[in-house]
């Protein structure tokens, strides 16, 4: 009995304390990483070609899935809205219902979730793979700023591309709602579009754009951070991918509530 052993009942609190400390440290590390990423966004040498490649990966390659999901979103909105509003003879509000739901809420949120699922997960996996195969160390050895090279370029690309994808989502959703409503539900297409033009204001579009910019930061931040700080080989890659998708999805939905509460 040289050293006094900690009593058994202290083991529980000890573990809890270590976990809490790890969580707090993880949050701090991510926040510092975000700061480092944003600071290097326009740093020299400016890697324009890399930004273009990331824009193509996050933007162009997401167009298909964004258009597909927005079509169904627009159709279900017009179907539900028509069902609810026709009971009160208020079909004239169908257009504003569809357009405002899409532009203010569903467009930014669903587009961000689709980009996360498609591109965010891939970003986390790619960077985690580079980490565990020591390619990031190799970058540092070559005097390349790895945070700028891997994270800042993707942050800039996401900030440019996500608002545009959101606009595609909104327009395709409205177009699908219009087509479906006119051809299947028999609503008047002219009234539908005129009521949208009457009710949607520039401030609604601005709210949507502000949200999509915030979500773009979430996507680029969490997926690069998770990849950059991946550990433990192949398992670490999988963990980084899963964690980034889950965390971004939660952040997007929570952030959407906060933004709506602030901007309404």
């Amino acid at each position, binding site marked *: 009995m040289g050293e006094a052993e900690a009593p058994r009942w202290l083991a529980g609190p000890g573990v809890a304390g270590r976990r809490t400390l790890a969580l707090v440290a993880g949050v701090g590390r991510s926040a510092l990483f975000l700061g480092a990423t944003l600071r290097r966004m326009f740093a020299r040498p400016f890697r324009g*070609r890399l930004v*273009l*490649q990331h*824009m*193509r990966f996050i*933007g*162009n390659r997401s*167009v298909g899935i964004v258009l597909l999901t927005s079509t169904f979103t627009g159709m279900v909105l017009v179907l539900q809205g028509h069902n609810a509003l026709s009971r009160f003879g208020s079909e*004239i509000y169908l257009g504003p219902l569809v*357009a405002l739901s899409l*532009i203010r809420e569903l467009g930014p949120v669903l587009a961000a979730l689709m980009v996360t699922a498609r591109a965010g997960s891939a970003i986390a996996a790619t960077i985690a793979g580079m980490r565990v195969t020591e390619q990031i160390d190799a970058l540092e050895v070559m005097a390349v700023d790895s945070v700028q090279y891997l994270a800042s370029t993707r942050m800039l690309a996401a900030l*440019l*591309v996500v*608002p*545009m*994808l959101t*606009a*595609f989502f*909104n*327009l395709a959703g*409205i177009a699908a709602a219009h087509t479906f409503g006119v051809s299947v539900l028999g609503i008047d297409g002219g009234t539908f579009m005129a009521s*949208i*033009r*009457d009710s*949607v*204001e*520039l401030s*609604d*579009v*601005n709210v949507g*754009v502000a949200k999509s910019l915030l979500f773009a930061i979430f996507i680029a931040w969490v997926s690069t951070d998770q990849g950059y700080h991946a550990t433990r080989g192949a398992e670490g890659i999988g963990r980084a991918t899963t964690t980034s998708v889950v965390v971004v999805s939660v952040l997007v939905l929570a952030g959407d509530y906060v933004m709506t509460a602030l901007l309404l």
Partner: protein
Amino acid sequence: MDEYTRTEISVGFFVIAGVAAIAYLSLSIAGVQLFAGHGTTVTGRFASVGELKEGATVKIAGVPVGNVRSIKLERYAAEVELGIADTVAIPADTIASIRTEGLLGEAYVMLRPGGSERNLASGERLGQTESAVDIVDLIVKYALEKP
């Protein structure tokens, strides 16, 4: 074609389409206040504006010609400022009344132009106004005054 990479071209297409989509959303869908900024501004005093709100439509013969700029209380009456498109002349003896679309629809301002030779200039006042009709008031009146 060798001067440009596939990435440059495809991102170029994406960005052009993206900017066009955002522009269409904010310019056409959001319809950047057609009558805001320029145009004639006339005011009218109403005993009651009912459910009329800022931004509501102003119509002549059912055709939208402008919108409500502001509603203020002045000497216990509602002072309503109407922004009307430049292209429409408002005769001096025009009557303004507040109506609703259908029984429960949105309130709007209906203008009935008179025959006056003189047109109102910006900042002038509409002489005759009719207040909003309160449906509930009418029902109460009818129910109580019935013999």
